[in-house]
Structures are given as structure tokens and as C-alpha cells.
């Protein structure tokens, strides 16, 4: 709903939406999706076991208003990213129970392994690609979504710690 509103504000030449969820159990499809996020923008993690807007559990950003090297791929991937890499865990991004496993979020808050895992079919990721430079910043789009969630839907995504 929020993303639909955002799409209406901007032209298709400015933003593009990408979605991922596990249609089958192949973890390679997830890494392929991540590998293709070679642009700046905003990423949203969802828990599909929840209803409506409550599905959004995290909103983050990568890149700047101006052209820069920072992409969603290099923000979410790697040892400093949100997931265990294939080098760190043999079933990555799943855990030993074959549930989807987040590694960490950028926060002082400590989450248990259980809190950081989802049934794999409940995990979904949406990215908002910002296609143009010097039009809108990822931090503005991120704050727009978080602002809407809090002010219009009274929803503070579970893994965000600041709005």
C-alpha cells in the first residue's frame, strides 16, 4: 500500500520495485536476487505470517542522493550484512532447521536466534530501486516509509530501532 503510493508520486523512470520470496526451497535463488540488487535504494524485509502492514519487519537504505558506489547488494550481503553468507553457514540463508535466519541488525538491541528466524515461506524481501541520481535520496525514501508506517498505521517495524 505504502509502496503503491510511492510509485504514484514518482515516475517509472525514477523508481522500480523488485520482490523476492521463496517459491521453492532453492537458497540459490535468494543469493541470485541479492546479487542483482546492484543499485541504490531501499530494502524492506517482511514476515508474511503477519497481516497487512504488520508484515514489514525492517526498512533500510543504501546509497546517496548523488551517484555513489553503495548498492543494496553490498549493504545487505557480506560479513557485515544481515545474513550468514554461504561461507559462514552451509545452508545459508537458512539455519539448521531450514528456517530463514537473519544474522544481525544494526542495533544495540540483542535478539535471540529464534527472534531472528522465520519460516522460509514467510520471508519476503522488497527493494525499491532509485534509478536516477540527484532526484531523491535513499534516506528520504526510507524515512518516508517509516514515517507512514508510524504515523498512519501505528506500526514500528520489529527490527528498526529509530524513526
Amino acid at each position, binding site marked *: 500500500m505504502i509502496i503503491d*503510493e*510511492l510509485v504514484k*508520486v514518482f515516475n517509472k523512470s525514477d523508481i522500480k520495485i523488485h520482490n523476492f520470496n521463496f517459491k521453492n526451497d532453492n537458497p540459490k535463488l535468494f543469493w541470485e536476487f541479492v546479487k542483482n540488487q546492484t543499485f541504490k535504494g531501499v530494502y524492506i524485509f517482511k514476515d508474511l505470517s503477519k497481516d497487512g502492514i504488520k508484515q514489514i519487519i525492517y526498512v533500510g537504505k543504501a546509497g546517496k*542522493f548523488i551517484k555513489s558506489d553503495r548498492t543494496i547488494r553490498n549493504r545487505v550481503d557480506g560479513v557485515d550484512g544481515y545474513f550468514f553468507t554461504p561461507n559462514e553457514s552451509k545452508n545459508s540463508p537458512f539455519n539448521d532447521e531450514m528456517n530463514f535466519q537473519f544474522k544481525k541488525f544494526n*542495533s*544495540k*538491541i*540483542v535478539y535471540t536466534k529464534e527472534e531472528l528466524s522465520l519460516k522460509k515461506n514467510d520471508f519476503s524481501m522488497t527493494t525499491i530501486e532509485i534509478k536516477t541520481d*540527484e*532526484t*531523491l*535520496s535513499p*534516506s*528520504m525514501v526510507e*524515512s*518516508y516509509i*517509516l*514515517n*507512514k508506517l*508510524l*504515523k*498512519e498505521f501505528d506500526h*514500528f517495524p520489529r527490527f*528498526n*530501532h*529509530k*524513526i
Partner: protein
Amino acid sequence: MKNATQFLKNSFKGGFYFNLIEEFKKNDRYVDFAHETKKSDNINEKFKGVQVIRHKEKNIIYSISSHGTFTRKLNKETRTSFNLAWKPEQRWTPSTILIKERKMCRGWKSSRSGDIYNEVYRGFDVKNLTPYDEIYKFLLKIWEKKKNKKNKEHPDNTTPGTKRVQLRGNIDYKKIPELLKINPKIYKEVIDFDELIIDRFNIDESDKYFTPLFFSEVIRDYFKRNIDEFILEDKK
């Protein structure tokens, strides 16, 4: 302003910023803080919302800052009131505003200005870390006051570089006005409030549509898109 989406759409239209000021003025939610400080000595420093410091005549935007965030506690509950850990005036870097002196100072250089501060108030030579025993004692006190003491942060275990960073980062902002009189070079530029407009848009917790952060990001993008009209000195 109907909602956040309308606000965002408006920001793509010409005259957005000055229309915004007029709208907030009508609703009694705007002050020119530079002007306010002229009217009264009794200024309430607490501020929730977005502050823009700009030149009165030239369209130079010196700073855009948001004040008030909703945060999550360590126990994962969310706070219903803003986290106001610091007031806008309590920053000294990269810029600060001195209310009593009615001045804005820009361009605090951590190494140069931090070293001057340490020399004047502590008698420390930061570059050479002398007198070492005094510096060690000072850093040990800081470490002992920490709630979460980490061994690697004990002065026995930190590098000379880390010690320099700690000395340059531990500044009492209340001493800045006095230091400025002793050494005006601690800031690159000092501008009198009479040359400035300090737009303050009041946005508190109960605001229906906006968080200060979102409001400031939209304004920032607007200034960045309109570089023919505005010179944005705030490089964030």
C-alpha cells in the same frame, strides 16, 4: 498539508520551502529563532522539530537538523516520547550555535580545534601525548565512569591514535564560547545571528503527519534538487 505523501509531492514544486514557512506560520508552529533571541534573554532551549540555518540575504543553507526521534528500548519496547539526548545547542561539531553570544560557528576541525581545547583547558599536548601520566589518569577516569567497561578500551590497551581521538572527542561544550574568545580560529567561520535566519518548524510527538527526520529529509532533498537557487553548505 493532507499527509506525508502530499508533502512529498509538494516538495517537487517551485517555492516549496517558502510556502512551507508560511503554512507553519499560519498554524503558529514556526519561529525565526535568530530573531527570537533578539527579543528575549529568557530563551527556552528545548526544541522538537526541524531547524534550518540560512543566510538572510544570500540563499546559503548552512545546516538542516532534525530534533526528536522515536526509539526502541533495549528491552525492545518502543518509546512514545522523543529521545532528546541533546539539545541543538549542545553540539560543537561540525558547527554550533551560541545563543547568548548570538553567533553560529562552523568548521570545527577535530584535530586542530580539539588540540587547542586540550592545550588550553587540560594542558595536554595531544600530538605528542604529553604529559603522558596526566593524560593516562584523565583517560582512566573516563573509562571508569563507563557502565559497560571493556578491557580493550582501558588506557593500558588503547593505541596512541585512539587516545588522541578520545581526547579530541571529550569536549565540554559549555566552554566553547570562552575558548572562542581566547582563540577565534577554533572555528573556520563565525557568523552573527543578525546575518541569519534560523527557521524552526515545531514538530512534536503528537504530530499527525510527520516525524522530524522525514520532514528534514524532504527539505534536504528539495535544497539539493534546487542547486540553482540554493547553496547547500550542509554536506550530509
